[in-house]
């Protein structure tokens, strides 16, 4: 009934774009704990979810929030929590549980300055490596980001889709600038973006169901708690029924499965945008709000006839080494623009044969990096003086 649809063009905050994306993807359960600069996500969901029969709960802390969404996911719901640095730190143990027990869920981290309470209201991208390695033990993870509200919406939908496809937690690493800035966003009509729904087992009642036995295509059909299949879920190494096992074969098989299901699909998970890369001699690599300033510089250099290009990463983990190698391999120099001490810069260096051509352009003082900042850094790198 398109005529009853509300206005499709909206002027909103990035955090609201994330809410729209989550609801579009079919979010049914949210648990969270307020923290700047992510709180708008939970405030909007507190209003929106109950209207559509969804569940919303403000928990006693972020540990509980992460645990609650895992419990709700097991009953068959699409689930979300949202936080920022300090809360993301608290979630790490349960995030690892979701990795181990293969529970689809989405975690938003609207990054602020850290460590500790840091800079609550200012931008940083300092949690990139925490998203990768914040929980203990070897594992793989998916983390996505975006630089504008349309992409925040799209990546949020993607996050829910990937969580279901790979039976895994997915981290959305936004930042304070994108989260709080207001800009235009077009809300796609239902059905425009394909959604991945929970893959449920077709095994009938009374027949042995294996919650942890991958199908030929690698996916693991689930059975909702409350359904006809009773099985065990644990954070211990477990067999195909979900029961604890320390059999070396089982342990080895499970850790390989958990890592391979993601690392073997790097290209399928990779989301990125290319600007003027075909003949670029200087390639900027950036992501999140920072990519906006980088794009501004690239376009102004192009207008001056300089062969600049931008690779904007949207999938940060698993890191798309081949795609980055392809995009930057022929460049004279590669400049990684990010607001931390070089988390993604280190990965870009790994992706290239000549890491000495890779330079970090950053700001770590809570002030959003501007095109002027980038141009100044360029002058220094080129040896042209301040």
């Amino acid at each position: 009934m398109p005529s009853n649809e509300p206005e499709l063009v909206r002027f909103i905050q990035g955090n609201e774009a994330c809410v729209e994306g989550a609801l579009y993807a079919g979010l049914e359960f949210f648990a969270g704990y307020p923290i700047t600069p992510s709180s708008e996500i939970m405030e909007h969901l507190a209003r929106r979810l109950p209207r559509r029969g969804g569940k919303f709960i403000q928990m006693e802390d972020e540990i509980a929030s992460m645990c609650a969404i895992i419990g709700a996911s097991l009953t068959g719901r699409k689930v979300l929590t949202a936080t920022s640095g300090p809360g993301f730190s608290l979630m790490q143990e349960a995030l690892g549980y979701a990795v181990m027990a293969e529970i689809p869920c989405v975690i938003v981290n609207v990054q602020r300055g850290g460590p500790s309470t840091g800079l609550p209201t200012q931008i940083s991208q300092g949690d990139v490596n925490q998203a990768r390695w914040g929980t203990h033990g070897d594992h793989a993870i998916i983390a996505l980001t975006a630089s504008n509200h349309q992409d925040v919406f799209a990546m949020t939908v993607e996050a829910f889709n990937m969580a279901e496809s790979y039976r895994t937690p997915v981290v959305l690493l936004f930042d304070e600038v994108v989260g709080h800035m207001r800009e235009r966003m077009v809300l796609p009509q239902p059905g425009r973006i394909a959604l991945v729904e929970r893959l449920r087992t077709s095994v009938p009642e009374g027949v042995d169901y294996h919650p942890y036995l991958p199908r030929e295509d690698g996916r693991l059909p689930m059975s909702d708690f409350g359904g006809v299949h009773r099985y065990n879920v644990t954070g211990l190494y477990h067999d195909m029924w979900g029961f604890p096992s320390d059999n070396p074969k089982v342990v080895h098989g499970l850790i390989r499965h958990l890592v391979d299901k993601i690392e073997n699909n790097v290209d399928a998970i990779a989301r990125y945008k290319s600007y003027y890369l075909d003949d670029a001699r200087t390639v900027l690599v950036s992501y999140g709000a920072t990519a906006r300033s980088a794009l501004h510089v690239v376009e102004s250099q192009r207008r001056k006839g300089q062969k600049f290009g931008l690779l904007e990463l949207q999938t940060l983990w698993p890191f798309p080494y081949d795609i980055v190698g392809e995009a930057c391999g022929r460049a004279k120099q590669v400049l990684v623009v990010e607001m931390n001490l070089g988390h993604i810069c280190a990965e870009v260096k790994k992706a290239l044969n000549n890491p000495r051509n890779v330079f970090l352009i950053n700001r770590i003082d809570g002030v959003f990096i501007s095109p002027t900042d980038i141009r100044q850094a360029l002058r220094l790198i080129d040896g042209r003086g301040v």
Partner: protein
Amino acid sequence: MAIDKYLRERFFPHMWCAGCGHGTVLNALVRAIETMGMSRNEIVMVSGIGCSSRITGYVDVHTLHTLHGRALAFATGVKLSKPELNVIVPMGDGDALAIGGNHFIHAARRNIAITALVMNNRIYGMTGGQYSPLSGCEVLAATAPYTTIDPSFDVVALSVAAGATFVARCTTYHVKEMIDILRQAILHEGFSVVEILSPCPTYFGRSNKLGDAAEMLRGFKEDTVPVGSAAKQKNPELIERGIFVQKEKPEYCAAYEKIMQKARSAAGETI
């Protein structure tokens, strides 16, 4: 349905030490469920980490073995998402009230219809006998070689103060009593807490020279009295058993239903 239908018999013999009280809790819990004739498909059992928490592995219902201390937080997600499920959360004393203490009081405060069992052996069994917040003063433990100076929580008083609407205590000596209390706790429409005194002869018993499992059980028999009995007046050291609180208050998931109605009518007004 016969008792054994509720058990995953292929995992027996169980992992608990001889004389451990946790097996008795399993027995009583399964019998309590059986008397109610509940379908196994409508029960979700959520536990944390500890010897006690291994109980979920042996029961043929939907089982969720989670993180140390976090069982009630996971269970809150399960219950709010699907309120029609019966959610039972067996925990250890450290699990429920040290690392999980915050989740415990908040689940009680919300009065969400979850049955919380505190299998209290006054010790960290799984990790080798360190003291817990229920050990109490002047006991020996692996981390208290000169005796403890930490007073213990009173689980009953704490639960009542936090807002639980069913609060009871029993022991693994008084099994029939335990079955009856567990049944009432599971049927209760609100947050229910059952503290179960359960012996750990391996650590608490041995380090405090309390004798073997039989002697520890005799201790439960001699040191406890039914709630409200005159003996307690004469000897305040005695521990009371039975149901302390059983009252009605709005249950969380039911209250949330009303919020959904409110939200829908508010949305209707604005369109």
